[in-house]
């Protein structure tokens, strides 16, 4: 039997996010389609693992897309991710 490794259950997936001049999301791309952001419900900051070589400093945004779909996205450095499995509708 070869080496078997653990992996996280909900690995963050990269997501394309379109922002305005203030770095606020205005649309996200899901399955190649542009979904405009209707409103931002909440925004917060996670700072963790600061005692390690790879500290986590994430800006989290809970937003609602046009059509009512809710999505939580996060930004670390210049990369946007989401923990949710995303697919088009």
């Amino acid at each position, binding site marked *: 039997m070869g080496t*078997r490794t*653990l992996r996280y*259950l909900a*690995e963050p997936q990269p997501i394309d996010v379109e922002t305005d001049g203030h770095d606020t999301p205005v649309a996200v791309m899901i399955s190649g389609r542009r979904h405009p952001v209707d409103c931002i419900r909440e925004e917060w900051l*996670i700072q*963790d693992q600061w005692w390690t070589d790879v500290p*986590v400093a994430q800006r989290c945004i809970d937003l609602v897309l046009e059509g009512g779909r809710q999505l939580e996205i996060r930004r670390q450095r210049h990369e946007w991710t989401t*923990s949710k499995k995303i697919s088009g509708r």
Partner: protein
Amino acid sequence: MVIAVVIPRFPLLVALLAAKIPRDRPVALGPQPGDPQVVGLCTGAAQKHGVIPGIRVGEALSRCPELELVSPDLEGVAKASEKLLERLEAMGAAVEAVEVGVACFESRGLERLHGGLDRLLRRLPSALPVGAGGRIGVAPSRFPALQAGREATTRAPLVLQKREVGHFLSPLPVGRLASALGRDGDSDAESTPDDPLDAKTVAMLESLGIRTLGQVAMLPRQAVLDRLGLAGVRAWRLARGEDDRRLRPRTPPDPIESSVSFPEPVGALPALQSAAKMLIYQITAIANARGRAIRRVGFRAQLADNASWSRSLTLREPSTDPERIASAALPNLETIAAPVLELTVRADASTVASGRQISINDTDPGERRRRTGEALRHVQAAYGDEALLRAIEVEPHTRLPERRWVLAPFDI
């Protein structure tokens, strides 16, 4: 009464017969290709030189330089074992196959058929292989009957009445509880679901000075329950001769066999898989034509180095779908360690295809665990280790949701 038939060292006898070697020579079963280099069952002459099952080949040869090693003939053992069961069934017995060379059955119906227990026991040796040293034990229940079969001589059956069971079992070694057959000294022996204790527990009992079944029977039931749990209580009851487990007679198989011989030994796995798939299609077509479904599939291969290889698997549900059987069975071919001369697929098609019913009675937890484990093994065999994963909560209080749970390999 339960009658047990025990043929000691059955796989060794089959191998000796195939190799045409007399039983009084120092001989032991050698390791199979790819297995650890230890010897298996050995003859009495080899044991006199200090060779015991489980020691390394080099050590066995240094203890007994004239020791001959023979290859285990798995195919021959399976055939001989099946033949033994068929002959017992031909006498009218509903036989439970305990393991190769060991079987037991209820005498109740047969006594009337054969004119009493004595007549039945006189006829029984004629169903056993000639010169194999078959022993017969008779007792009111299964465990004492199996022990009586092991302790009996080849000359006469050992018949135990109910009042004699406790006295008979008392001096037997406690290792008999780790294996209903008491395969003492056989380190390769694995305990079966019927064996109440595992080898580690038996070793623990022995280290506490409890070496015989009589000493186990003398222990207070509550103490056994506290220390060893329900399995311990079952062992305690067996040691007292109380075995209420009913026999589980097998359904006589309806075998379908198909084989292919190669003009030259074949070692390439894709070629073997193609051949096996073709054979699976053939046997499922035969089963379909008979209106039967396949429950067990066995593969046997005659290898180029005169050894043989075999694997069998039991499907969770009887099936006639060749793709389903192939997906469960083909990964087994990876364990063939030498080029193959002949490949045989043998299936038991004793299940009626349309007659599969669920059971009204709730099965016991052990049986459910066994079946679940079997199903999971099938999934792993078909789709690989990654098909089954266990979610484990590792950092429940982290603020990063993705770090709370990990997926770990699921070991059955």
